[in-house]
């Protein structure tokens, strides 16, 4: 397959609006990179620049070491799968999958072999004589993927391919994409705003906001060691709780609560004594304990877990994800502790990872 080097890429539109700022990324051979971020963060624009559907305003794009910044989309040897499937309604599934190769005037027998092989991989063999309108959303998306597979491109690009599917189908198709990636060992770039897709699919995630890359790392790195408040709030469901706290010796004092610091945490906060920081705690890191009290405002039992929403103090809210089925009533006072804490600089919003 291929390596992709995206070097200092900017996207500035004609009206001087800058959508992407200094995007840098080295995609390894066979790697599945997921670009994740909220709507308008520039992830799709970046993907379209890689595909050649948008001009690159500044920077360079290298495929296998060759500069393809100015190369037209059709000559980039990349295949893109769109959210809207983009299938031809009047053609059968077979014809849709064969279409790009037919345009290239490939030998019909070779096309036939490739289409059947791709259909076999995607479980579409029995659907080849049908029209797209006769298929479900998930099957249509598989056809769109099949159309990419037959081309045997160097890089696969996916632009929110599962957004049109219902939750159940999305999960199933997501697993299929993962299996496909493992089977093809292809270099893939995948855009989504769904953090679940990002965490489950990616070898590495690129988290973006407002056109800037916020963090690049493995799913575990982004979840466990977020680079800043944005990443911490974006990755994880329910999102991380944030509290304004003051470091006072070996304690963190916030509005309505005060918690102790472990020696390791104290070491990380060296230089912050007496200063205000942002404390981040994931809902799953809040457990029943005795560090602080909260008034329950809502409780949702999800079977394996219970989500408890509470007010720690006036204007300070927290969400806890407790294991098991808990019976909290609105107005109850519950006691909790934090079993894992993340610290962020209040001014820069960056994670505090060591002595300052």
């Amino acid at each position, binding site marked *: 397959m291929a390596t992709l080097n995206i070097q200092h890429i900017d996207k500035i539109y004609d009206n001087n609006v800058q959508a992407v700022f200094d995007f840098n990324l080295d995609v390894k051979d066979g790697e599945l990179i997921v670009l994740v971020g909220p709507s308008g963060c520039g992830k799709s624009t970046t993907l379209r620049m890689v595909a050649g559907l948008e001009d690159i305003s500044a920077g360079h794009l290298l495929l296998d070491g060759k500069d393809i910044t100015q190369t037209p989309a059709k000559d980039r040897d990349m295949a893109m799968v769109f959210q809207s499937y983009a299938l031809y309604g009047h053609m*059968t599934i*077979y014809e849709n999958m064969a279409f790009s190769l037919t345009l290239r005037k490939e030998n019909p*027998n070779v096309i*036939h*072999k490739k*289409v*059947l092989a791709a259909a076999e991989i995607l479980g579409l063999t029995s659907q*080849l*004589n049908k029209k797209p309108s006769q298929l479900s959303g998930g099957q249509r998306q598989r056809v769109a993927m099949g159309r990419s597979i037959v081309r045997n491109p160097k890089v696969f690009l996916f632009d929110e391919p599962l957004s049109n599917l219902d939750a159940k189908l999305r999960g199933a198709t997501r697993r299929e994409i993962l299996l496909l990636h493992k089977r093809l060992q292809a270099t893939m770039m995948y855009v989504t705003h769904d953090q679940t897709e990002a965490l489950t699919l990616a070898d590495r995630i690129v988290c973006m906001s407002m056109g800037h890359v916020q963090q690049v790392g493995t799913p575990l790195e982004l979840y466990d060691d977020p680079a800043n408040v944005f990443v911490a709030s974006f990755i994880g469901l329910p999102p991380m709780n944030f509290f304004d706290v003051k470091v006072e010796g070996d304690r963190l004092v916030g509005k309505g609560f005060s918690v102790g610091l472990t020696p390791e945490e104290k070491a990380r906060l060296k230089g912050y004594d007496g200063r205000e920081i942002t404390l981040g705690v994931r809902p799953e890191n809040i457990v029943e304990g005795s560090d602080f009290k909260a008034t329950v405002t809502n409780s949702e039992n999800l079977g394996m877990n219970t989500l408890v929403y509470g007010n720690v103090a006036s204007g300070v809210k927290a969400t806890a994800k407790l294991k098991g089925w808990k019976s909290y009533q609105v107005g109850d006072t519950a006691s909790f502790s934090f079993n894992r804490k993340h610290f962020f600089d209040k001014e820069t919003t960056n994670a505090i990872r060591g002595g300052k």
Partner: protein
Amino acid sequence: MTTEERSIQRDRMRFIRNSLSATLCYFGILFDVFYFVNLYQSDVGTYYYQIFIGASIIYNLLFLLIVFLASEGVKNYMKNYSYLLIAIGVMQVVRIFYIPSRAHAATTMVNGVETPVMGNGQFYTQVVFLVLSAACLLVSAAVNLYKCRELAEHQKTLDAQKA
């Protein structure tokens, strides 16, 4: 062509429609249209064979309808439409001996001068259109019959492999 290539070519027919036969049907229709436009724009209907002209209009309408229907049939490898096309193709040749031949042999008086109802030029043009139309339909039918046989044989092989 190697055995494998032949096998793949046969297998492709399971997913690719018989567009060659269908296209030949469309050409058959096209040449028939050329024929009747050429016929009706002349004075043949006014001077001679008015009943035949009326019947030919109805026949042409039916022809267009049936051949278009057959084109869809052969596109999907339906064998029976080949026989229909053969019959209509033969009829196209037979039609030469009705209006064009009779009009070509007949004369009428125009301003006291004996004039052929259909001149040589128009007659041969019409013969060419009808023959071309017939040829297209017959070839279409032949191609479809051949492909249907190939596909049926291939399907038998696949079924045997499955069993």
